């Protein structure tokens, strides 16, 4: 999966947790989940759990800590998918 493909799927994962739908449609790798998309920090846990289910991966504590913006989310997801492959 390319980074663009992951980014497009990530939009669907994030969607239930933000009200900024216009901004979500235009996210890039620099978009900050809390500051830009105004996601409740506790909902980051739900996003991680939903991403795990969607990609059939397991995200550990250290990796979860890195997932603050769209780019680092894609880093972790592609890293975990590669580990599995």
């Amino acid at each position, binding site marked *: 999966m390319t980074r663009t493909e992951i980014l497009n799927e990530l939009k669907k994962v994030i969607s239930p947790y933000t009200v900024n739908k216009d901004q979500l449609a235009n996210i890039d790798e620099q978009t900050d989940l809390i500051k830009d998309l105004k996601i*409740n920090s*506790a909902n980051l846990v739900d996003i991680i759990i939903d991403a795990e289910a969607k990609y059939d991966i397991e995200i550990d504590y250290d990796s979860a800590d890195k997932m603050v913006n769209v780019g680092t989310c894609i880093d972790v997801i592609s890293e975990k998918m590669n580990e599995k492959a």
Partner: protein
Amino acid sequence: MNNHILNHLPYKSSFRFVDNISLLSENEVRGEYTLKQDSFFYEDHFAGNPVTPGVIITEIMAQIGLVVMGIFLMLKESDLNFDDDTDLYPLLTSTEVSFFKMVLPGQKVTVVSKKQYFRFGKLKCYVEMLDSEQEVVARGMFSGIIKHIELKK
């Protein structure tokens, strides 16, 4: 004996809404509370017609369903000491509750909470409140974290 866990609750007197914990496990908690006739909120909610406010129902569900289980899980998996650590507070991060029946002063309610997950420090539970006839008073999803915060200035 499950009630030792109550010593770790940070709520006191008029804002403690747990009398007894009858079941305490990693996946399920059950506890009871009897609404006090002279609770502070009845005087004004509503004047001459006391009914337990929805926010208080929500608080009872959160204290038993989320905070008791959260403290239990954290004490189990780490060496956190709630007695020494005065900057440790349970924080509610989201709730979605539906209400079905009124609760009047003096009524006893039972709260049953089932864990959905506990990960990265966040606990999410499905919580139901039942009255003495075992009928559902309220039900909903609760999430919270326990966090170090310095409230004192």
